[in-house]
Structures are given as C-alpha cells and as structure tokens.
C-alpha cells in the first residue's frame, strides 16, 4: 500500500453514464477512492468495465454526471470549458496507447508543444525539451519525426511531452498496449523511475497483470464498480 500522504485525487460517489441512441448506459456507478500524492495506481478490469472512462474523468477531459472529483484540492467538476483546458495544461500529463504525437512535428517539437501554452521564451523552452528528451534517452533523436521512430521510442517522446510541464498527475491509458515486450518493459521502467525518483503521481489503465505489478496500488473495476485488492 502507499505511504500516508495528502490525497492528490479525491473521488466520492462518482457516476457516469453515456447516451447511446435513446438508451442511457451506465458506465460508472458510485466510485469512491483516494489517490495519495506520489502514488502509482493501476486501474485494472475487463474490457468495457469503464477504466478509460474513469481515467478521462480524473484527467478532466470528460465530465461526470454526479459525485465529487477533486484533483490537487480543486473541484474540477465545477470548472468551465476554458478553465478546465487551462487546468489540464498545468496539472495533467497525458500518455496514450497510440502515443498521439503530431506526425508533422519532430520529437523536439512534439515535446515542446505543451510549453506553447506557457509564457516561457523559446530559449527556455528548448532547455526544458532537451532535458526531458535526455531523460527518456532520446537526446539523439530530437530531429526525427514520429514516423522515423519505433513504437517504443514514440511512447518515450510522449512521456517526455507528458512531464515537460511538471504536472500534478500523469495519466496513462494502456501505455504498453501497442508495444512489443521489450519496448513495453522499457516504458514501464521509465514510469517506475518517474514515480520513484521524481515523485510523480501516476494513474495507469491496464488489463495486463504484469504491467500492474509495477504499480503500488491496484484498483479493480468491474461493471462500473470498484473492488479493492492489495
């Protein structure tokens, strides 16, 4: 279990349903749990159990129907569209299953992207990008386009992009889902390192028990409800 610390994410009675045609499909019902600062949480569960939905709510790219959701002490359900976007740019680092890099931007430019929303001058932006890319071991690939990189390398660029703004939480949805075993191991090691050495709070969706073994806490979702196991 995680160490006793201030919860960075507080979730109370969270519910979410989707409308499909004129049918309302309940995806999450009554989710309650905390994530401590510096924790590394794996969200597990069968396909369609609502893992991604929960992660998207925490990351502020989707809105719950009801319940309380506080991240870093801020009730993000009460934020408007623009405020929420601004909040995400400062507080959330995204890692996607398919990397979601801009294909027309180099590794350097992709990592620089979130910094365009800050008022850092370009010299300082470059310093940050260089540091982040060095950290993920891609200092020699800065000028490469995503199509010139392997899947594992692309995901490392995405990790660099996720940490470049020093966000409150890192969210990763099946970050190894599209990778071969070796690259997957690489990415998991990197996340572990970010958590251990930089104290990053990580929330990772996975259906792979081996990946989940890297995390400190595992939350099991089943049919939209939580089962806690240690």
């Amino acid at each position, binding site marked *: 279990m995680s160490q006793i610390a201030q919860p960075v994410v507080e979730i109370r009675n969270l519910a979410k349903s989707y409308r499909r045609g004129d049918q309302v499909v309940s995806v999450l019902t009554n989710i309650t749990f905390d994530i401590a600062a510096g924790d590394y949480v794996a969200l597990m569960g069968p396909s369609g159990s609502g893992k991604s939905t929960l992660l998207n709510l925490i990351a502020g790219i989707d809105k719950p129907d009801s319940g309380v959701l506080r991240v870093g002490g801020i009730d993000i359900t009460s934020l408007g569209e623009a405020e929420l976007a601004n909040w995400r740019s400062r507080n959330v680092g995204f890692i996607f299953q398919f990397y979601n890099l801009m294909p027309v931007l180099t590794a350097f430019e992709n990592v620089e992207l979130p910094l365009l*929303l800050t008022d850092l001058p370009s010299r300082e932006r470059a310093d940050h990008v260089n540091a982040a890319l060095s950290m993920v071991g891609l200092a020699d690939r800065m000028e490469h386009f995503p199509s010139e990189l392997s899947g594992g390398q692309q995901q490392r660029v995405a990790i660099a992009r996720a940490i470049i703004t020093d966000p409150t939480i890192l969210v990763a949805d099946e970050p190894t889902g599209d990778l071969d075993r070796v690259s997957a191991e690489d990415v998991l090691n990197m996340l572990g390192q970010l958590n251990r050495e930089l104290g990053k709070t990580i929330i990772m969706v996975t259906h792979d028990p081996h990946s989940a073994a890297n995390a400190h806490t595992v939350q099991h979702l089943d049919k939209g409800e939580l089962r806690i196991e240690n």
Partner: protein
Amino acid sequence: MYYLKLILRNAMRHKLRTGLTVLGIVVAILAFGLLRTVVDAWYHGSDAASKTRLITRNSISLVFSMPLTYSSKIRQMEGVKAVSHANWFGGVYVTEKNFFPQFAVQASTYFDLYPEYLVPPGQMRDFQRDRKGALVGRKLVDAYGFKVGDQVSLRGTIFPGTWEFVVRGIYDGTEKNTDTAQFFFHWDYLNETMKRTAPRRANSVGVYVISLASADRAAEVAATVDHEFRNSLAETLTETEQAFQLGFVSMTEAIVVAIKIVSFLVIFIIMAVMANTMAMTVRERMAEYATLKALGFGPGHLTLLIFGESLAIAAFGSALGIALTFPVADKFGKAMGTLFPVFYVNSETLIMQMCAGLIVGAVAALLPCVRAANMRIVDGLRSVG
C-alpha cells in the same frame, strides 16, 4: 513561428491532394480574372468615354443620318466648345474576319476633340493634306502590319465599292484604355464620292461629336440641341459619350451578364471543392485535434490551425492564378485581335481575385472549424484506434 510551421507542414501532408486543390484554385482564379477582363473589355468604351463630349445622332436610330447643316447650328449654341462629325463606314479589310471599326471623320476638327489620340505632328499634317489619307491605331499596326505609306483598300458594305486609302499616320493612346484599333479617314472623301455616285446620300452625317465647355453643362446642352431640331426632318438624340457607348453594350447585355454569372460560378465551384478537401482533411485529423484539446489547447488554437491551413492553400493558389492572369490575358487579348480593342487586367479585377481567393479559403475552413471546436475530446480520441 511554431504555429506557422505546423500550419505549413499540415498543408503539405497530402501533397497530391493539396497539389490538386491548388491547381483547381489556380485555374478558377485565372478563369475568373480572364472573364472579368473580358467583361471590362466589353465596357471599355464607356469607361474610357469623356465626360466633356456629347454624341448627337438621329433619334430614330443610328442607321439614319442627319443633314450636314446641323453642324453650324450646333457650333453656335451656348456651352458648345467645338463640333465635329463622323460616319460609320463598316468596310471589310480583305476578309470579314478582320473586324475593326472605320470612321469617316471631318479631318480638320475631329482630332481636336480627341486629345487622347496621339499622332506625331508631321504625320497629322500629311494626313490632313491627303484626301485619301488614313490614320490607324497602334493595335491595327500590330495586328495587320500597317506602315505609313501603305495602300489599304476596304470593301464597302454600307457605301458600295472598293475604297483606296494611304496610311499617313499612326496614333497611340494617352491612356491604357484608349481604343487604338480604329481606322479614320476623310469624311470629305466619302462625301465627294457619294455626291458623284449616290447624290441622295450626300451631305449626311452619322453622328455629331460635341465638345463641351464644361462637363456640368452636359444635360443642358443636350436638351438645347435636341430642342433645336425637334419637328425637323431628322430629330436628334443627344447623350453623353458614356451613355452612347453603354447603349451599345446594352445590346449585348445578356452575354455580359452570362459571363459575369459564369465567373462567379467558377469561384463557387472551387469553394465547394476546397470545402470538401478541408472537411476531409479535418475529419482525418480529429484524433490529433482531440489530443491538442486534451493538452489544453482551446477552440481558438484549432481555428488558427484550420483557418491558417485553408487560407495558406487558397492564398498560394490565388497568387499563382493572379500571376498567370497577366501573360494569359496578354495572349488571349492578342488572339482576339482587334475584337477587344482594349484588353488588360485592371486593378479592380486583381482585388476581386484576391478577395475571391481569401473568401474561398475562409469559407472552406468554416464548417471544419466549427466541427473541430465542438468535438468532445473523448469522442475525438476514440476515433484513433
């Protein structure tokens, strides 16, 4: 800088698609420019018309003439500075295809009323002295290779027979829109010949040209002239040169309107094509726009990227199209020979081409922008895999 880079690279992602779109815009803007220029060429006579000249003709129709005696009466009227007269000759040079207007003009007075025709003084003197002399415009020189001293014969259609002339001078225009595709000769030569061959048709004038002391007396002088000849054998209709020229254009108005409609249709079609391209492009990139939104970029950023890309493509195509309009219009004008005596791309056409290009780019981006701005992030992200 960063955004510009992103916009331009996005525009170049599908080279073939962008290339074809640019090609379409080039063709559309070029066609638009050419068609507008044709319309302008059609109206050139009225555009170039002087505000200080009136044209008096027989009120029944241009086909009917007026007595020569009107000349001295008009000259004495208040507000009239000078009077000259002319007849439409309507002859054929070698073959019917070689169309250019020929006028029999009162040589001693006519060119005082048309300061926009520039003739070297020596040539003017030679023309005045030679009863069979002719003055030809620069465009005719370019088209038919006339030189000073050349014998030119015209086959008369209104005035029967073969008429021989000697080119005594060549005139240029002081303005870009001066008509230099005309052929002038002595009205006296025409009249003397008619006295011999068809005396009943002698001493008759097609149009009187009146030079005004001041442009704001046009209406007043016109009324005076027409009043003077009311209830006479040949009643007159006097109007400004511009109104007179527009009268010609209105005969062919339907064609002009059709050309105008087609010119806008061309723009409308390329707008639809470009809108389709942008819609396709943006739909393909929804996951990327969703990612940008997730990272905190707002609808304004997406609008900048999408509008920017659309405008960049449209601006590039338009610039090429506009640049091509000049040489193509030049070729086209030459190929049309003397049918369009004045044929050049004016600044109004250029501005309309630029506006058309910008409107095409902006309209094409409109719907994709709205779609991307309203797209929910989770839906956009799901379109990835």
